[in-house]
């Protein structure tokens, strides 16, 4: 199965093209901004190098978040445009899951991924045997710590807040492609994973969040 994976949720603009266990090509550009300009040419180059056209892609896996709201929409909207003419299934895989799979490639352990999402909050989720458990939770570090037990692998950019490793913020597009190949499209729709509601106040100062 040929999978195109895209991530624009963080500082990186990255993409990978895989076929079964083979990596046909991968790109990681740490640009911070300008993802909307870079992603198209990046994917075009990747396909050209592999001698493929979009219609040869069987599946598109997109990182849905957490991250920049505008950033995560860059890859999601691009993937939806790519997919339409050839009815290619698009899957949404969270960055939390990708991080868990990076820390536990064999899927044999229990992993807690904790990502820092500003305002002193973290966005975290537990993964068992390579599968997500429940839904991601937005909370302070203290609450996440209560879910942690000694046998868990701790990963993510906020892991260092409670004794985990100091890791760089990185979503590996090859791992994203691998998860995309294994998951069922109906279970993982390509919808954004927003870690908080929009900042909008109703007249009278009532907030949505």
């Amino acid at each position, binding site marked *: 199965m040929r999978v195109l994976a895209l991530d624009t949720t963080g500082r990186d603009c990255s993409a990978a093209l895989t076929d079964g266990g083979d990596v046909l090509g991968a790109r990681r550009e740490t640009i911070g901004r*300008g993802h*909307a*300009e*870079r*992603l*198209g*040419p990046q*994917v*075009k180059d990747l396909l050209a190098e592999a001698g493929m*056209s*979009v*219609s040869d892609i069987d599946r598109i896996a997109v990182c849905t978040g957490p991250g920049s*709201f*505008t950033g995560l*929409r*860059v*890859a*999601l*909207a*691009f*993937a*939806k*445009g*790519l*997919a*339409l*003419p*050839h009815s290619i299934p698009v899957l949404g895989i969270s960055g939390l899951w990708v991080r868990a799979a990076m820390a536990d490639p064999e899927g044999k352990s229990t992993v807690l991924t904790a990502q820092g999402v500003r305002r002193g909050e973290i966005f975290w989720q537990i993964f068992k045997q390579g599968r997500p458990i429940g839904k991601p939770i937005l909370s302070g570090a203290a609450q996440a710590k209560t879910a942690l037990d000694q046998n868990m692998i701790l990963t993510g950019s906020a892991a260092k807040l409670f004794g985990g490793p100091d890791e760089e913020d990185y979503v590996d597009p090859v791992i994203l492609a691998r998860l995309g190949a294994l998951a069922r499209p109906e279970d993982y729709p390509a*919808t*954004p994973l*927003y870690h908080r509601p*929009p*900042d*909008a*106040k*109703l*007249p009278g100062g009532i907030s949505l969040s």
Partner: protein
Amino acid sequence: MDIAFEHSARQDANPDITAHTVLVLGIESSCDETAASVIRLPRGGAPEILSSRISSQDELHRPYGGVVPEMAARAHMDKIQSIIAGAVEDAGINYTDLDGIAATSGPGLIGGVITGLMAAKGLALSLDKPLIAVNHLEGHALSARLSAPCPFPYLLLLVSGGHTQLLSVNDLGDYSRLGSTVDDAAGEAFDKTAKIMGLGFPGGPNVERAAKAGNAKRFKLPRPFAGTDHADFSFAGLKTAAARTFASMDNPDDQDKADLAASFQTAVCGALTDRTQRAMMMFRKRHGDGPQRLVVAGGVAANVQIRAALDTVCTENDFVLMCPPLKFCTDNAAMIALAGAEKLLAGEIDNLDAPARPRWPLDETAARRNPASGSGRKGPKS
């Protein structure tokens, strides 16, 4: 020359500039409407609109009295795929029949613009067809040509929630800005005034409804820039004056609101006609005497009082007033498809690195020389 200029330079792609007819998909997502449309345009002929789908977010933003950018962006993301698929289906074509994909790439709310533009880039790469990055204002400038013959040149008054400008539309791709707002757009002033009086969003129709029963002479509100020898607008002071007037009333009843709505609407009307008349003189200097055309586009053009006042100004100045049907006056994708099709026929296409531009004046040079709306560190907005 800045980065935006370099990026927008036409590059390596090689469109068929001898094509007789092009079939173009247009995508619009720069404010609070998600829209897609397919049109067919013969070279030098009239466009045929094969489909035009639109999803409005009015309901979503209504409780807030204005467009909330992040909520708008999320709604665009939710709708973009089904709106595009619907427009292609309605047109009764296959994706592979398309000759180009056009999308608004600015000016507008960045989250929405990026969503529509990225979907267009995906389609362009998927189909190996050219991308055409369209200036939203150029779409409005050409929108009158969607429904009726409207030869160049003409004077354009664009009045919406996001823009208020007077443009001389000299030819395709040749636009000179005669005036624009230095602060709020006219529609924005309507929205904010409606919000202050609790009349609801969108403000234009609600203020207009309330104004019907009102006495426009009761409150004396300012006419910014009236009589000055340029064609710029200002609505912030007028909006503030209306807010102060409202705040000064004890327990305002429906009649008070109606009177203030009527006074406000009449003041906006006065500003628009005064500035338009000034622009007509500027337009004549360039394009000469004899009958000319004024095209009015944007949601505010739906206001009956404003339309009637502009009609009078036109009659007095030997201009013919052209108001496109409301569906093409407000944000829509058919106008983006039309602007894209015209550019495609002229060989003007863009690469996949085309940037989303929250600020993008249609008449870039003039805007730099004479910055008006929201100009600042990042340059003129529109």
